[in-house]
């Protein structure tokens, strides 16, 4: 089990009804975490449209997670 702090933005925050939560989950990668939390919060946004950062760095979805990491989950971006 890993203890991970998750921060939600924009539509993810509204969907989850939370800015942030700390979860203990048996997950290896950022993609695993995304799938677990999508189920938990009933989100249907495809992973391929979203982005993720771990400890303030943008990473690929196959990035390994470590105990104590902070993960930022970004729904589809739309600047400009």
């Amino acid at each position, binding site marked *: 089990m890993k203890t991970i702090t998750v921060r939600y*933005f924009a539509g993810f925050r509204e969907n989850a009804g939370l800015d942030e939560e700390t979860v203990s989950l048996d997950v290896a990668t950022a993609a695993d975490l995304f799938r677990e939390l999508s189920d938990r919060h009933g989100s249907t946004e495809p992973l391929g449209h979203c982005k993720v*950062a771990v400890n*303030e760095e943008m990473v690929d979805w196959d990035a390994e997670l470590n105990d104590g990491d902070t993960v930022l989950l970004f729904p589809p*971006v*739309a*600047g*400009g």
Partner: protein
Amino acid sequence: MRITDVTIVPEQLREELTDRAAGAYVGFEGWIRDHNEGQEVLRLEYEVYRPLATTEGEKVIAEARDKFPILHAECVHREGLLEIGECAVWVGVTSAHRDEAFAACRYIIDQVKVRLPIWKKEHYVDGHSGWVSCERCAEHAHDHPA
């Protein structure tokens, strides 16, 4: 790359890019329009995760410098609530000749739209609102393989 919650004034920003070696300046302004996907838009709200929007924007500008022989490039993006007609994003590029300034400006705005952690919520005339997903921007970005 800068994120701001005050009005963008392109005439002031372009002054920062002046250079005696520059023969061309290309500026792009993205404005808030009154409609999207068949709906009448009243105003727009930008949410920005500043730390990573800034670092990712700096990366985009550095990539533009690597790809095109330009002199200076800068990008400023708004956050918060914007009204119709306001400037949401500005990109300015200077170079010796126009071709590279156009190309670099296009590269920067296309990448900024699909890579920076920025989200926009449209507030419609009929009272509802929704987060925008920018699929068309993603298609444009494919014109510039990394």
